[in-house]
Each structure stands twice: as C-alpha cells, then as structure tokens.
C-alpha cells in the first residue's frame, strides 16, 4: 500500500464522514456518559439501565466512557446530539456539565453529582431546570462524622481530599462546617493524585484523633495506604464508601448503594420520557434508610479498643467479624 493510496483512503474517510446520516427507526435511545470506569460508577450505570427498562423495556443504550479525559466529555455529548438520543444520562459532574451545555432539546438526567447547583446544572435544589434534573449523591457528612464522635470523643478530625475533584472539594467544605458546628478542629490535607495519599495521611496522622474520608475517587484508589497508616497509629477511620470497606480494614463506612441510586435515576429518567416535565422534578436525594448502607468492622473496633454503641450497631447493614462479612439486612 503506497503513500498515495493511503492518502486516498483518508480522503475517502473524510467524505464518508460527511455522508453520515442516522436513520431513526428504533424505539427509545438513551445515551449514558460516564466520566471513568470505576466500581461504584459501573454499578450506577447498570442500575440506570435496569431502572429504565422497568418502564421502557425496549430501550436501547449507548454507553460511553470518557476515560477520565475531560476533553472527550464534549465529544460524547456531541455524539448524543448528532444521534438525537431521546434522553441522556450524565454520570459525575464534568460529563453532566458537558451534556447540559451541548444538548439543548433533549432531557439530561444527572447522577453522582454532589452539588448540582454548585456545578451549574440547575439554578436551585427545589426545582428542576429546563430539560435538566437528576440525583445528587450528597453523602450524609454530618451523620458520618457524628458516628466517629459517638465511638470516640475527639478534638481533632483529619480529612484528606483531592484538590482536583469538584465533588471532593465541595464535600470537604461541608465537613469543615460540620466540624466547626461541633467545636472540633478540622485538620485537612489535599492531594493531586493517588500517589500522594500516603504522604498526606502520614503528614497529619499525629495531629488527629480520627480520620474521615468522603466520596473521592482519587483518595479511594489509595485507601489501603490510608487504612494501614491509621491502623498503625490506632486512629479510627470512617469512610463514605461501604463497598471498598468490605476488603480494606476501616472502622465503619456509611454511604450509598450505588446500584440502587442508579435504579432510582433510571426510574426518574423513565418518568421524564413518559412526559413529566423536568421543571417539576427537584434534585433528588437518596433519603430512604434502605438506600443507605452502614458497614461496621468489629475486628477493627477490637484492635482499636473502641466500643460501638448498641443503637449504632442496630443500624448496621453489614458487619465484619473474624474476617467474615455478614449482611444483616
């Protein structure tokens, strides 16, 4: 194959591009734009599909993933616009922002966005936007921190978060305010990537009585390092992600079941497809106790020498004892 023929081939490619047209013959087409492949987000994506199929059994899904590459968030939105999907779902903040910015005529449902108002997706929490609504994954920061305080009275709480993740920055702000309200000192440390996490926890571990981690992909990638340093210094660690706490020792994890959040998002998308105006749907939260998971690791509690109050133990949905994971409810 010579240079000339390669050039011809590329020219043909360009012409082919120009001739692309999309015959719309299928029932409902749903585009899902995910920021990165990640266990929680993958579960969410699966949930969205299952939730939507309940009311729209013949929905066709176009699953796209930006691989953490933010410049492709817009390419995916363009693709959905060109293919005239009936509805688009954005998983995480930047992908949802790109969808809302580029899709003017199709409804956009966001999920796994901590603060949709702060992210500029909607103007207020109590009503949806024009063609925009969705689920926030605002974690119960106050409850998570209060859990720690119930287990062991403390004066200083440590927190590590990624300065490059919008969700994490917002949650850190909320955690700071919760600590101020409780009169405890908030000791924070930020990282730019997962490799810095061990250093960050080592830097603050001697100055804290407990450590709290919120939803933060960058930090959770290095959770084993945080857990190890906390265990070595006998400092209780509470996180917002029960799924990673199943195999990495943390005292307790209190968070969402992301698959259920996906289901709820999918059902919401189904309602919007059926004609419910998005403006009538305020930002949704996972409020139901059954949507929440509380994991308590009794092995870690024994090692730290802390007693978990009985009422908290009753709320637990997953217990770890002698290395065995048991689902309580």
């Amino acid at each position: 194959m010579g240079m000339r023929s390669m050039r011809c081939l590329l020219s043909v490619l360009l012409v082919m591009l120009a001739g692309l047209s999309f015959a719309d013959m299928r029932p409902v087409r749903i585009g899902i734009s995910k920021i990165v492949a990640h266990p929680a987000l993958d579960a969410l994506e699966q949930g969205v599909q299952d939730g939507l199929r309940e009311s729209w059994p013949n929905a066709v899904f176009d699953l796209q993933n930006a691989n953490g590459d933010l410049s492709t968030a817009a390419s995916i939105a363009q693709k959905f616009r060109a293919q005239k999907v009936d509805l688009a779902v954005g998983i995480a903040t930047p992908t949802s922002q790109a969808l809302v910015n580029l899709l003017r005529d199709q409804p956009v449902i966001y999920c796994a966005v901590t603060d949709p108002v702060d992210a500029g997706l909607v103007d207020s929490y109590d009503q949806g936007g024009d063609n925009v609504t969705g689920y926030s994954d605002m974690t119960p920061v106050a409850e998570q921190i209060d859990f720690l305080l119930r287990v062991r009275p403390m004066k200083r709480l440590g927190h590590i978060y990624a300065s490059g993740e919008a969700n994490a920055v917002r949650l850190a702000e909320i955690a700071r305010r919760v600590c101020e309200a409780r009169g405890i000192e908030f000791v924070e440390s930020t990282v730019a990537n997962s490799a810095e996490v061990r250093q960050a926890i080592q830097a603050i571990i001697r100055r804290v009585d407990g450590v709290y981690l919120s939803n933060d992909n960058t930090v959770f990638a290095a959770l084993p390092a945080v857990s190890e340093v906390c265990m070595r210094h006998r400092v209780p660690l509470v996180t917002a992600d029960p799924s990673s706490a199943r195999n990495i020792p943390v005292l307790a994890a209190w968070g969402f079941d992301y698959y259920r959040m996906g289901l709820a998002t999918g059902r919401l998308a189904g309602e919007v497809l059926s004609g419910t105006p998005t403006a009538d749907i305020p930002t949704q939260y996972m409020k139901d106790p059954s949507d929440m998971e509380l994991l308590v690791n009794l092995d870690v509690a024994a090692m730290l020498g802390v007693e978990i109050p009985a009422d908290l133990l009753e709320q637990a949905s997953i217990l770890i004892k002698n290395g065995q994971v048991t689902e309580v409810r």
Partner: protein
Amino acid sequence: MIEGIFVEGLIYGIMALGVFFTFRILNFPDLTVDGSFPLGAAVMAACLAGGAGIVWGLSLAVIAGWLAGAVTAVIHNRLKVPHLLAGILTMTMLYSINIRIMGNRANLPLVRTDTLFSMVTGVFPGLDPSWVLLIFFLLLVLLIKLLLDLFFLTDMGLIFGALGNNEQMVVSAGVNPATYKVIGVGISNALVALSGALVAQYQGFADVNLGLGMVVFGLAAVMIGEFLIPSNRIWVLTLRVLLGAILYKAILYLGRYYGYAIHMTPNDLKLISGLLIIAALMLTRRGQKGGKGLFS
C-alpha cells in the same frame, strides 16, 4: 455530527498550532501545554464568573498563557535544564495556580453564563446554531493561521525558523537565542491557552484536569498533518496542522461511533490514538527517507 467534528477539530487546532510552533519551528519539545491549556480555561471561567466579560476573559487567558510559556523558557535558559524538565516544572506549578485562579475550586461551571458561543449563535437567531458556530470558528481559526503565516515571514519569524534549525548560526548573526525562546515558547502557550479558553466555553466548564493528554493531541495533529501533505511552505505547514487536528478528532469520533462493530469499547480509544500516531510517524518517515515503512 460532521459540524461537531469540525468545530472541535478547529478549536483544538489552535492548540495544535501552538504545539507545532514549539516542536517543529523552535525544536523545543514543550510540555507546558498540559498546564497552560487548563490555565486558559481557568482564567476565562474566572473572568466570566466574575462578570469581567468575554473579551477580557480571552485577552487575559492569552496573556496568562504567554507568561506560562515565558516561565518555562526562563527556567530552561537560566538553570540550563533540558526543555522537557522545564516544561514539566511549569506544568506542575500550574496545577496549584489554576485551582487558585478558579477561587480554590477544581471545576467552575459555565453552563448558565453567557459565553462566546451563546453570543455568536445569538447574532443569527434564525440559523442552525451548530453551523453558525462552524462558520465562525472557521473564520476565527483561519485568521489566527493567517496572522501566524505573516508572522513567520517577518524578520523575527525568520529568526525563529533559523533558531530551530541551527542555533549556532543565529548566535553568530548576533541574536540572543534566549530572548527568542522566551518570546517563542510564550507565543506557543498563548495559542494553547486561547484554545483552552474556547474549549471551556464549548464544554460548559473549566476544570483543573482539562489538560490531560493535550500534548499528545497536539503532536498527533502535527504528525497526521505531516503525513497528509508533504511540503515546506509555511502556509501549508500551518494548514496541515489544522487538517491533522480535524482528522484526528474525526478518527476518534469514528472509533466512538462504529467501534462496537469490531468489539471496541470506549476504553480502547487511547490505544487506538497511540497506534495512530505511531502509524503516521512510520509512514511520514518512509515518505521522507525512502526507508522501510509500514506497508512496503
């Protein structure tokens, strides 16, 4: 879809022109790009959020980009460190600076603010906005390309060309190469930051992680362009960078559209883009040197 590819290719093409300037004209492989691209986005977003307006945003983004490039060149000149290290140092520092510029945030939304895009499409309300944008960016990018072409024909531009070819010759002609590197790398990153400022408005947000993989995109555009049209006339050189950027975007789009037909997932796109650059490099080498290429 086709207008989407062209608009994206053109906007990122401005960044590719900047990469072309450092890599091909100055012979200065510059990694500042991964930091100066989000710098432009951050400055633009901060200006729009602060109510300073579009013109100020674009102007300040360009100035900030120029400064970032100048810092890289100064580190390289003064401390006698390699180009790559100087760029990496600036890029690393820009991460913190970009977060500061956006008011200690990682991400600034522009979804609900007036941007250049909403302004341009608002001028012709009766027409399809995506085609209006395409025409507008075609004109804008051609204007930038034309200015660059004219710049390379001035005395200063010719010195830049000579500097990349043979630094010693420029020194013996009584020109200080250090000064020119500061100006040149500055201009390159000003273009990159301008591209970043436009991308932020196009996407609807500025984010500190927007620069990931930008150098790779710029290089891919340059190399695919070189494969497309062999030439040594400056106006063709800049044109083929833009064509390379559009074609590269198009190929990535095709991967997204039809990849499923060959069981490709979106995760494979990075691999495809890497292989694509390697293929373009091999073919171009073969074209230049008559050596053994990919399809001989």
